[in-house]
């Protein structure tokens, strides 16, 4: 039995079509004027300012929050404030919890989406179209509205205040299946799979040796989105977790109470955003590309 090696596969497989922008004759490629740059810089400033402001507040003493006119330059108290966040709340545990939750969800979503996407895009079976339509339709359903029975279910399972209550409902997403189905449909030539079959590959061997290597770029984008979404998820964790909070829940409880300590709150904001910011700095180009391919929903 011959097994296709990764390198051949990668060379044979055509890349999915590039964005129309790269083709000549599309778009609106006028040279940008000074006004275009000025407008974009103003928008950029507006985009960055709230995060910059949380850096300013979290690096100053508590007096800065009430200063008039506002202080606009970061100070030297960032690490004091961070230490205070970790001392007053279980923020370290919350960060760890969020890493566990987001990590497990990401691995699972990428794996199951690729598997189902392969079946939907490249295998022939009865009911394929109907089941795919069902999967796509369910991605539009407002899940937030099912939280009451979901909570009752978790209570029955004894999972309230356990990370499993947040992880398990997130293990698969309709969007992930749809995303991988679309990508694999374009990226894998049928001839390649036929060749594998003639060589005696089982379906799972095809998945492992042909599909997975080709799926890698799309899987990376899906993984990024899934991680960020899981990290930022707030409402369901708020409902089902109490002591065992994720970082967004911990952050919201920093602000709760009759008087909010904004230095503490915005320091927490900065800490909670930092992992996502790091990912964005390193892989922002892929994230932007993923959204512009038009398939990603937030």
């Amino acid at each position, binding site marked *: 039995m011959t097994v296709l090696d990764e390198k051949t596969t990668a060379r044979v497989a055509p890349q999915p079509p590039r964005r129309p922008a790269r083709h000549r004759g599309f778009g609106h490629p006028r040279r940008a004027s000074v006004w275009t740059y000025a407008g974009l810089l103003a928008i*950029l400033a507006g985009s960055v300012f*709230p995060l910059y402001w949380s850096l300013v507040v979290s690096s100053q003493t508590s007096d800065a929050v009430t200063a008039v006119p506002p202080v606009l330059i970061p100070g030297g108290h960032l690490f004091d404030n961070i230490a205070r966040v970790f001392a007053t709340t279980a923020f370290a545990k919350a960060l760890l919890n969020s890493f566990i939750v987001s990590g497990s969800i990401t691995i699972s979503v990428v794996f199951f989406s690729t598997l*189902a996407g392969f079946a939907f895009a490249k295998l022939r079976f009865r009911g394929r179209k109907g089941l795919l339509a069902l999967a796509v339709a369910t991605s539009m359903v407002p899940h*937030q509205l099912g939280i009451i029975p*979901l909570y009752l279910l978790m209570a029955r399972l004894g999972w309230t205040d356990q990370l499993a209550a947040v992880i398990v409902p997130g293990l698969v997403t309709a969007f992930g299946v749809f995303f991988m189905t679309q990508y694999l449909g374009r990226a894998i030539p049928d001839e390649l799979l036929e060749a594998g079959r003639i060589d005696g590959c089982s379906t799972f061997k095809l998945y492992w040796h042909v599909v997975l290597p080709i799926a890698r770029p799309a899987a990376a984008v899906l993984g990024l989105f899934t991680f960020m979404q899981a990290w930022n998820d707030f409402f369901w964790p708020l409902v089902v977790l109490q002591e065992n909070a994720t970082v967004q829940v911990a952050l919201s409880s920093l602000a709760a109470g009759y008087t909010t300590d904004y230095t503490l709150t915005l320091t927490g904001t900065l800490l909670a*955003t930092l992992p*996502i910011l790091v990912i964005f700095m390193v892989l922002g180009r892929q994230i932007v590309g993923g959204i512009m391919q038009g398939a990603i929903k937030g």
Partner: protein
Amino acid sequence: MSSSARLARLDHKGSPYLYILPFFLLFGAFGLFPLVYTGYVSFNDWDLIDAGAHQWIGLGNYRELLTDAYFWNALGNTLSIWVLSTVPQLLAALWIAHLLNHRLRTRTAFRMGVLLPNITSIVAVTLVFAQMFGRDFGMVNWLLGVVGIGPVDWQADTWSSHLAIAIIVMWRWTGYNALIYLASMQAIPHDLYEAADLDGASQTQQFWRITVPMLRPTIIFTTVISTIGGLQIIAEPLLFAGSGTPTGGSDRQFQTIALFMYEQGFREFRFGYASAIAWTLCLVIALFAIVNLLLTRRIADEE
């Protein structure tokens, strides 16, 4: 038929179902089932977690809901915040996409810049803005003071709280929609603009006569997505109140339907009533989605 051939046949016919099974199992159990079961719960007087302690009351919860002033208040707030955030947001996104659709230096940096708000969590965004919209020491009131406008108590009034929440939503979503528009703009054939140039059309005319009409399907798509998301907002009004109370301000001036559902379900522990709210909201969302769909069809027919 040899046994290995039979095995291959089984693999060929059966294994696809195996690959999609995990998705449908998990999704059915934790996604679809709860949503359907919400319907059942909504027909009950259900105040305890214990599943045995509930009583079938038919449409009782719905009847109560229709006469509940808090519900109508929440519905009004939701629609108001949705309109205030969606309309300016999509217009601004169009303009930003237009700016980005030039030959630019550091193209990727600008695109990443406009997307930055969208990758920030709702909790983080709302808390920072809640501070900036503070009555006494907030940045927004200070800026207004500089141009001679008196301080606004943003949380206290209906209009001001709706505006503040709409700005939070806008800040987080405008750049995302701009990138969607930009992607569509790049698919518009360039000869259209060249022909317009020859005819002496100005840049502004070209934007409204070529770019916007070519973008119509995408504009409808973003409107539908913003509708489904916007009618469900909950975290922004919950956290904007600061104290973590789900009433949406002292007079419920910014309580949305989803927040009302959360209050009834997880503060009052009226699971049946909260489920009725959930299904009603689902209906409202579906209604708006259908209106959008009909709109899409009509526009598609015209072309």
